C-alpha cells in the first residue's frame, strides 16, 4: 500500500497538488439546470471557454481520483484479508483443538485405562476377573548402550542370583536367555519386594517394567466358569477366558467388561453349601448349578474340588474338570419325573389316581426292586414321592422307546449341553437295536435314569422346561437383558408342566425330598441316588447322589441341581442317598439365596395340591 502511494507520488502530481484546481473547478462549476422559473427570464451569462491547462488538470485529477480509490480499495482489501487470515487461523486452531485435543478416546491418558485383557464381571457388575498392575522381570540388552556386554557380571552368576530371588525359576533357562542377548521377558508378574531385590543386583539390563496381570478378586469363586489355570509347568485357559478370548483381547471390545449371568452372592452360597455338604458326607466331588427357568441364565455353577486361578498350583491340575458341563454320570431317579412328564404329555397318563403295579420287575439278568416297599400298587404321585423304580419302569415300558427317546432328544439330551464354554460333555446313550429303537429293558432302565449318562446341566435344562410351562431354552453364561431371552421351543404342553409342578411339590412335601423343603419357598424337586459304574459293574457302595429342585412351585423361577460324587455315611450323615446329603444342601441354598433372587419366603402362599393330597393317602 505504501509503495503504491509512493509510486503515484513520484510519477504523477499528487492529489494534494491538484486540490486547489479541484476546488477552483468546483467553485466555478455551472449551476444546476433546475433553476427557479422566475429566473428563467433572466438573460444567460455567456460561458467562457476554459483554458487547456484547466482541462489537463481535470483529467489528471480524475486519474488521480481513480488511483486513490484503487489504492484505498487495495488497502481495505489487504486489511480485510489480514482479518480473514487471522480469523481463519483461529478457526483452524479451534477445529484442530476439537478434533485432536478434547475427544476422550483420543487422550492417551484415558487409553491407558483400557486393559490388555477385558474385564469379566457378574450380572451386577462385581468384577470376577480384571487386569491388575504388576511388575515383570525384563532383560533389555541395549540398556548399557556402550557396545560391550549387556551384563556387569557373567550370565551364569546373574542367573544364580535371580534364582536366589525367584526360587521357582529354571536357572539354566534364564541363563540361556541372558547369554542369548535378546530382549525378552524373563519372569512375568513379580512382587514389589522381588523387584527391589533385582534392583539391588545393580544389573542395568535386568529391568522391572510395569506390567498387567490377570487377577481374580474372588479367588476360587467360579474358577471353572472363568477358567484360568496356572500350573508350575503349564498354564491354560478354558471356560470363559478361552471361549471369549477374541472378545477379551479385541482392540474394539476389550474396553467393555463382559457381563456374565452369574450372581456372585448365589455363586458364593452355592460353593459354600456344596463344600460343607461335601465335607460332611466325605464325598469325592460335587457339582451344582442354579438356572433361571425363563431365560436359561446360569446364576451359579460350581464344581468341587476347585482351584485358585490366582495361584500357581500343581496338585489342583485334576480339579479343573467341570463336573457340571463336562462330566457325565447316570443321575438316577431324578429322571423319573421326566419319564412321567413324557407319559403325561403323550397321553399315556391321563388319570393320576390309576394304580400301577409296584412289584419287582423281573428281567433276564436282574430283578429290580423299589428302594423301600410301599405296597404292591402305587399311583403316580406315590410312585414319585417314594421314588418307585418299578412303577417308573412300567410307565417307560408302556411309553415305549420311540416316545421316550423323542422326549429326551427334545430336551437336548442327545447332544452336548448348549452353553458358551467349550468344556461340554457328550451324553452317553444306550445302544440301539437293529430296528433303530432301544430294547424294552433299555427303555425301562433309561426310564428311571440308568444306562444313560448326561451332565447335571442337561438335567437342569430339562427341569427348567418341565416347570416353566414346557419351553426348552439353552443355558447361557451371558447376562440376558429383559425381554431378550431365547424364545426356546415347546417340548411339553403347558398342562403337563402344571401337573409336574404339583407332582414335584408333592415329593418335597411328602416324599424323599422333604429335607429340601425350605419353609415358605414352595420348593419342588426330586432325589436321585444312582449306583456308580466302576469300570465293570455297578458299585454297591459308591453312588452319585443328586437333587434337582425348582422354586417357588406356584410360579417357578429357578432350578437348582446339586450332585455329590461318592458320598459316605458319616457321623453327620445318617445315609448316603440324596435324601440325607444333597436335599439338605439344596434346602439350605434356597433359604440363603431365595431372597437375593427376588423370591421371598411366604408361609401364606401354597401350591394347590388339594387334588393330589388325597391320592397320597390311598392304600395307607
Amino acid at each position: 500500500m505504501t509503495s503504491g502511494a509512493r509510486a503515484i507520488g513520484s510519477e504523477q502530481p499528487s492529489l494534494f497538488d491538484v486540490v486547489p484546481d479541484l476546488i477552483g473547478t468546483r467553485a466555478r462549476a455551472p449551476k444546476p439546470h433546475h433553476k427557479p422559473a422566475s429566473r428563467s427570464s433572466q438573460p444567460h451569462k455567456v460561458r467562457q471557454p476554459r483554458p487547456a491547462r484547466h482541462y489537463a488538470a481535470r483529467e489528471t485529477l480524475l486519474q488521480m481520483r481513480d488511483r486513490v480509490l484503487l489504492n484505498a480499495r487495495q488497502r481495505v482489501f489487504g486489511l480485510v484479508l489480514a482479518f480473514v487470515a487471522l480469523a481463519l487461523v483461529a478457526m483452524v486452531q479451534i477445529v484442530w483443538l476439537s478434533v485432536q485435543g478434547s475427544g476422550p478416546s483420543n487422550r492417551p491418558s484415558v487409553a491407558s485405562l483400557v486393559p490388555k485383557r477385558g474385564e469379566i464381571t457378574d450380572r451386577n457388575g462385581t468384577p470376577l476377573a480384571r487386569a491388575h498392575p504388576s511388575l515383570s522381570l525384563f532383560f533389555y540388552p541395549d540398556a548399557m548402550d556402550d557396545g560391550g556386554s549387556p551384563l556387569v557380571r557373567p550370565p551364569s552368576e546373574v542367573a544364580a542370583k535371580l534364582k536366589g530371588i525367584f526360587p521357582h525359576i529354571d536357572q539354566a533357562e534364564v541363563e540361556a536367555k541372558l547369554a542369548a542377548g535378546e530382549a525378552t521377558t524373563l519372569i512375568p508378574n513379580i512382587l514389589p519386594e522381588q523387584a527391589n531385590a533385582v534392583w539391588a543386583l545393580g544389573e542395568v539390563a535386568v529391568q522391572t517394567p510395569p506390567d498387567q496381570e490377570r487377577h481374580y478378586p474372588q479367588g476360587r469363586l467360579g474358577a471353572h466358569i472363568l477358567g484360568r489355570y496356572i500350573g508350575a509347568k503349564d498354564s491354560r485357559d478354558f471356560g470363559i477366558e478361552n471361549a471369549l478370548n477374541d472378545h477379551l483381547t479385541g482392540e474394539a471390545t476389550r474396553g467393555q467388561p463382559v457381563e456374565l449371568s452369574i450372581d456372585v452372592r448365589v455363586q458364593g452360597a452355592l460353593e459354600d453349601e456344596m463344600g460343607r455338604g461335601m465335607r460332611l458326607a466325605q464325598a469325592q466331588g460335587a457339582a451344582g448349578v442354579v438356572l433361571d427357568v425363563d431365560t436359561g441364565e446360569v446364576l451359579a455353577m460350581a464344581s468341587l474340588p476347585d482351584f485358585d486361578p490366582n495361584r500357581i498350583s500343581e496338585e489342583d491340575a485334576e480339579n479343573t474338570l467341570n463336573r457340571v458341563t463336562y462330566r457325565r454320570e447316570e443321575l438316577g431317579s431324578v429322571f423319573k419325573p421326566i419319564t412321567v412328564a413324557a407319559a403325561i404329555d403323550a397321553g399315556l397318563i391321563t388319570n393320576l389316581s390309576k394304580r400301577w403295579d409296584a412289584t419287582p420287575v423281573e428281567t433276564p439278568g436282574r430283578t429290580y426292586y423299589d428302594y423301600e416297599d410301599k405296597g404292591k400298587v402305587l399311583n403316580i404321585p406315590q410312585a414319585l414321592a417314594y421314588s418307585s423304580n418299578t412303577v417308573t419302569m412300567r410307565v417307560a415300558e408302556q411309553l415305549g422307546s420311540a416316545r421316550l427317546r423323542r422326549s429326551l432328544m427334545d430336551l437336548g439330551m442327545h447332544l452336548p449341553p448348549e452353553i458358551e464354554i467349550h468344556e461340554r460333555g457328550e451324553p452317553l446313550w444306550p445302544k440301539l437295536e437293529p430296528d433303530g429303537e432301544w430294547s424294552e429293558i433299555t427303555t425301562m432302565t433309561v426310564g428311571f435314569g440308568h444306562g444313560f449318562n448326561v451332565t447335571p446341566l442337561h438335567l437342569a435344562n430339562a427341569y427348567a422346561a418341565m416347570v416353566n410351562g414346557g419351553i426348552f431354552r439353552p443355558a447361557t453364561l451371558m447376562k440376558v437383558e429383559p425381554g431378550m431371552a431365547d424364545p426356546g421351543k415347546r417340548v411339553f404342553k403347558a398342562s403337563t408342566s402344571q401337573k409336574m409342578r404339583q407332582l414335584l411339590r408333592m415329593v418335597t412335601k411328602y416324599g424323599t425330598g422333604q429335607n429340601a423343603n425350605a419353609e415358605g419357598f414352595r420348593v419342588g424337586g426330586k432325589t436321585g441316588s444312582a449306583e456308580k459304574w466302576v469300570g465293570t459293574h455297578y458299585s454297591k457302595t459308591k453312588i452319585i447322589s443328586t437333587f434337582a429342585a425348582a422354586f417357588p412351585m406356584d410360579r417357578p423361577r429357578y432350578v437348582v441341581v446339586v450332585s455329590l460324587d461318592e458320598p459316605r455315611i458319616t457321623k453327620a450323615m445318617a445315609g448316603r442317598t440324596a435324601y440325607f446329603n444333597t436335599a439338605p444342601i439344596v434346602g439350605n441354598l434356597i433359604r440363603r439365596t431365595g431372597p437375593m433372587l427376588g423370591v421371598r419366603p411366604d408361609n401364606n402362599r401354597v401350591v394347590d395340591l388339594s387334588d393330589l393330597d388325597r391320592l397320597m393317602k390311598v392304600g395307607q
Partner: protein
Amino acid sequence: MMMTANRLRQIGWGVVLGICVVSFAILSLTVHAARNEVLLADIKIVELKKKQQRLETEFQARASQHQLAAWNRVDLGYSAPRADQYVDSRKQLASYGQDVRPGGPSPIRVARADGARDAAQPRKMVSPVSGQPITLASADLPQSAGGAFTEAFGDFLIEASPIREAKAQGSTVLVAEAAE
C-alpha cells in the same frame, strides 16, 4: 490536515490489526495453557482411577464371598432368615402387637398414639435425661411471628433437637399453631 487524517487512519487500522494479532496470540497461549491444565487434570484423573481400581480390587479380594461366608458362619454365627422373620405388610406388622387369645393382654400402647389423641393439649415435653421441661424456642413467640419462625426454622429445630420422639409431636403442635 487530510494527510494527517489519512495517515492516522492507516496507523489506526494497523494498531487495530496489531491489537487483534496480540489478543489472538494471548488467547491462543491461554487456550493452550488451559488445555495443558486439562491434560494434566486428565492424567491425574486416570491415575486416581487406577488407584481406585487397585483399592477396589483389594476390597473385593479381602471381602470375597468365601471370606464373608466364613465370617458369617464362624465368627458371627449368622444363618439365613426364616420365613416367619419376613413381614409382608403393615397389617402383619401391626398384628404382632395384638394378642388374639381371649383374655389376652391388651395391645402394647405406643407413646405416640397418646400424643396424637391428645394433640390439642399436648403434655409438656420433658428431657428423658434430666426430667426438666423442655421449651422450644418458638413456642412462646407471638402467633404470627411463631408461624414465620416455624416455617423458617421448624425443620432445622426438629433435626437439631436431641429428643426424637418429643420433637415429632412438638412439630405437629407448632404447625397446628401456625395454621391457626
